[in-house]
């Protein structure tokens, strides 16, 4: 009896809850401009941090290579002079 009532309660919840839980709390406008704005801003906010972190990483890597190259040249000249 208890199992049946739990199942019945679960069934009621499955039927009733999806109506209250909308897929997207902010997608309340079906206009083309609005959908396009959501798409563009989603892409913008997703790619921007990746781009900035990648750009910073590439810049730092280049700086390290430049420093190492200048250090190697310095050590070569030192060894050739000695």
């Amino acid at each position: 009896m208890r199992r049946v009532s739990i199942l019945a309660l679960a069934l009621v919840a499955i039927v009733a809850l999806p109506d209250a839980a909308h897929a997207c709390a902010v997608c309340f406008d079906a206009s083309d401009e609005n959908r396009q704005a959501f798409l563009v801003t989603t892409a913008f906010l997703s790619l921007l941090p990746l781009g900035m972190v990648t750009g910073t990483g590439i810049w730092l890597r280049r700086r390290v290579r430049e420093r190492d190259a200048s250090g190697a040249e310095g050590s070569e000249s030192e060894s050739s002079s000695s």
Partner: protein
Amino acid sequence: MTTQSAAYPAPVKRAPVVSNGVLGMLVFIIAEVMFFAGLISAHSIVRSQTAGQMWPPFGQPRLPVQETAINTAALLVSGIVLVIAWFAFKRDRSTARIPLLLSILLGGFFVWFQGLEWTALLGEGLTIQSSSYGGFFYLIVGAHAAHAVAALAGLVWAWVWLGKERLTVSQLATVSAFWYFVVLVWPVLYVKVYL
């Protein structure tokens, strides 16, 4: 002990590729770029919901596009002058004082002009509560103005330190990076908010 040191050469202390100040400022700028990106995105979404309707909303004053374009030019010139100050600093430190001061004055003009604009718009009835248009305007432009004031304070500090001959390359690079961020983010905000 001697055999160990022969097997493992002493570690070489290499110069850092970026100073701690510049690296810290870069991380901060990345966070601030995301902050402004969020504001711009929210503004774009709200504006797209009024598609087909009037933007700015009816009864709200229009933003001074032409006057702010001149102000934008002043800010961009300030950034260019700061680049000149940077190269002057690397060549001969004493010659960097005038371009650095000019950059500060141009930046100060930008902030002062923004203040005048705000006063006029408040007088015309555009407040942060009058509409989402007003709310976004004061939030985005106000956040930028707060950054501009903070960056200007850094430049003024650098100018004073330069006068005392205590300013280092790393310190100037750090405060300059913040000012370049303020300068470069503004045209994007201007296009999105004013146009």
